[in-house]
């Protein structure tokens, strides 16, 4: 079968089982767009900015468990995509991004819309390729999907010069991909598994600390819960790991780290065994390294060897897929027929109960008082019973959503953790809604963040994505203002907006519904109204919240986890 490069791209996407791609056309990819026009295997969603294509692909990937796919043109198209690639790299999201490139003969000539995209994206991707011949395309695409979705997942970029997409060659589909230089380990070392189980059964004060790795290893959340129950060990989640264990499981301590709960941070500070599962000891999690889990033996399970002992020394490293390793551990526990030390654990749980009693996430919503942002999140939890897919932007609203939403299941929480990318929320919410058209998607955003990808309201309208967007509008870059209040004597340098748009009218201009909440007594009824609308269009609810509310608890940057500021 003779195909053009562009047709090979389409054929490979079909064979990779891709049903959805996000993109934006331009000169260097017209040939590929023409091939897309003539096929019906996958649906192309037209975004309004290339950054959004990548974030949408990310939201789609996180919720569906599949690889996200994006297509952008050369030069500015590709440079606009860079933030989305870096975001996916930081959060280990599997993506394949195709970018057009100028014709091979022009590369290096400062041609129109030429940029050294392989150079620019080298450190923003897990790997990238420049395709030199149409004959190489199929193998490269196959390898790109393999690299993006295996090992520690991440974004892979394929740069395709225009002539390569035009040239015709014989299409050969490589049945298998085998790369001698890339062989990720999935099985845990049996000797290490035995040692880990021995430590788990011998300890007195265990904590399981799980992260985004649980989301990347589909099915592992159930195993995580099983391990927690069989060891009677408490579990704390990182920001990326929320939903790894149901929020109402009695073993769940809440999130840990900078804005973690008192009980989670205290438990980590006092445990004698810390089992890290698909988490990477990020500085927002550990606080001051020397004071992190000082008495604990640390078991670290991760698919990425370079994450192990990078920040915190792991006494017992286990390289492997967290799902596979958790299964191995559970089997070993069953084989040994061992049980944890019940007396010690009873004491440990007593201590945890005392920390819990501090109720560090407590807030009080008085009638007639400004609306507490925490209350808005809680109200949405009540309406959706904790079953919504929740996407966020970055800032205080993100932390409140993490603390107060309460997730029942994995793959329901779509946020930018590693890079902390404002502008992520709207497009990621779109990708999520496309992945699960029958489920409720809510985007919590801020008055500043929403303006970084607000053009995507047009995309939501075009595809009739019935997303509920809730702005926790404090008329501040709240998170910046909080740091300025705490560490810069309230000098609010450039963190205040005195010219916010009328978001309700803006929503209407983009042909969705806009609603406004100014007083606490309107909150529940307006939310109910928003969730009841069934016209397939997005609904934006602009909630005026208490302007100078801060996120607590807070571990100041560089402080130890047990040096939390509670209010």
């Amino acid at each position, binding site marked *: 079968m003779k195909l053009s490069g562009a047709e090979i791209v389409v054929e490979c996407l079909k064979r990779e089982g891709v049903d959805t791609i996000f993109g934006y056309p331009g000169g260097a990819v017209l040939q590929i767009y023409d091939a897309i026009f003539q096929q019906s295997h996958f649906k192309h969603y037209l975004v309004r900015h290339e950054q959004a294509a990548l974030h949408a692909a990310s939201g789609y990937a996180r919720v569906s468990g599949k690889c996200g796919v994006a297509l952008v043109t050369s030069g500015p198209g590709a440079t606009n995509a860079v933030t989305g690639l870096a975001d996916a790299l930081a959060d280990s999201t599997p993506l394949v991004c195709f970018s057009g490139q100028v014709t091979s003969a022009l590369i290096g000539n400062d041609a129109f819309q030429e940029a050294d995209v*392989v*150079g620019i994206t*080298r*450190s923003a991707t*897990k*790997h990238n390729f*420049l395709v*030199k011949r149409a004959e190489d395309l199929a193998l490269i695409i196959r390898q790109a999907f393999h*690299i993006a979705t295996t090992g520690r997942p991440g974004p892979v970029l394929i740069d395709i010069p225009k002539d390569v997409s035009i040239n015709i060659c014989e299409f050969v589909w490589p049945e298998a991909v085998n*790369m*001698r*230089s*890339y062989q990720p380990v999935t099985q845990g070392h049996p000797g290490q598994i035995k040692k880990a189980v021995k430590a788990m059964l011998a300890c007195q004060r265990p904590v399981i600390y799980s992260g985004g790795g649980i989301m990347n290893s589909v099915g592992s959340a159930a195993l995580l819960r099983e391990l927690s129950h069989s060891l009677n060990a408490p579990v704390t989640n990182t920001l990326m790991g929320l939903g790894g264990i149901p929020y109402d499981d009695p073993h769940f301590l809440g999130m840990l780290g900078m804005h973690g709960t008192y009980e989670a941070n205290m438990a980590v500070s006092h445990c004698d065994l810390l089992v890290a599962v698909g988490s990477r000891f990020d500085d927002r999690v550990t606080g001051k390294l020397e004071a992190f889990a000082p008495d604990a033996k640390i078991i670290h399970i991760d698919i*990425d*060897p*370079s994450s192990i*002992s*990078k920040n915190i020394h792991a006494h017992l490293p286990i390289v492997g897929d967290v799902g596979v390793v958790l299964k191995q551990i559970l089997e070993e526990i069953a084989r040994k027929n061992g049980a944890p030390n019940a007396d010690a654990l009873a004491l440990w749980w007593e201590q945890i109960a005392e920390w819990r009693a501090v109720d560090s996430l407590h807030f009080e919503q008085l009638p007639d008082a400004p609306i507490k942002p925490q209350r808005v999140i809680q109200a949405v939890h009540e309406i959706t019973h904790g079953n919504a897919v929740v996407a966020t932007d970055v800032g205080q609203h993100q932390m409140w959503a993490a603390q107060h939403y309460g997730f029942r299941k994995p793959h329901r929480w779509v946020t930018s953790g590693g890079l902390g990318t404002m502008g992520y929320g709207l497009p990621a919410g779109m990708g999520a809604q496309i992945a699960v058209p029958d489920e409720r998607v809510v985007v919590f955003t801020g008055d500043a963040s929403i303006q970084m990808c607000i053009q995507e309201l047009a995309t939501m309208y075009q595809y009739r994505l019935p997303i509920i967007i809730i702005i926790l509008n404090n008329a501040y870059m709240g998170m910046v203002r909080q740091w300025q209040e705490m560490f810069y004597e309230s000098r609010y340098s450039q963190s205040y907006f005195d010219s916010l748009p009328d978001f309700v009218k803006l929503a209407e201009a983009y042909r969705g519904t806009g609603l406004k909440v100014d007083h606490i007594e309107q909150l529940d009824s307006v939310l109910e109204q928003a969730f009841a609308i069934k016209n397939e269009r997005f609904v934006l609810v602009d909630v005026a919240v208490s302007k100078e509310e801060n996120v607590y608890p807070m571990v100041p940057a560089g402080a130890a986890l047990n040096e939390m500021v509670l209010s």
Partner: protein
Amino acid sequence: MRHTITVLVENEFGVLTRVAGLFSARGYNIESLNVAPIQDKTVSRMTIVTRGDERAIEQIKKQLNKLIPVIKVDDISHTVHLEREMLLVKVAASPESYNALLELADSFGAKVVDDHIDSHMILELTGKAQQLDEFLSRLSDFDVTAMTRTGPVGMRRDAKGFNLD
């Protein structure tokens, strides 16, 4: 601590940039980096000399391994191994200095590659980095007009190979 790390990589476009970029992006030292294909032309071998504490070196090795085209990484510093480097040096020559230069070259086992008694000489010396340093310091009495060194290449001395299997 100084470490000598040898790396087998796919001999493909851009690998050198990926390795060099890794060192600069993560703030690791790189003293020298040497690369050329091995007998199987699809593979290149690098010798990288770097400095860092154990933890940094551990990370460097892991990060190298994480690069997709990297096939194998071996830190040979703690093994019995040898390292060799080559120097080319151009020295101004005159009938007065000529014999002294020849003598010095001879005493270090350096080869005279180009020989113009009333213009310049080019000398070639292969050896340990230290020998090259000494040779250069002795040459400082003369008028060195150009020099270049390859940086070390290294290999274990035992029978063990370093190849694809």
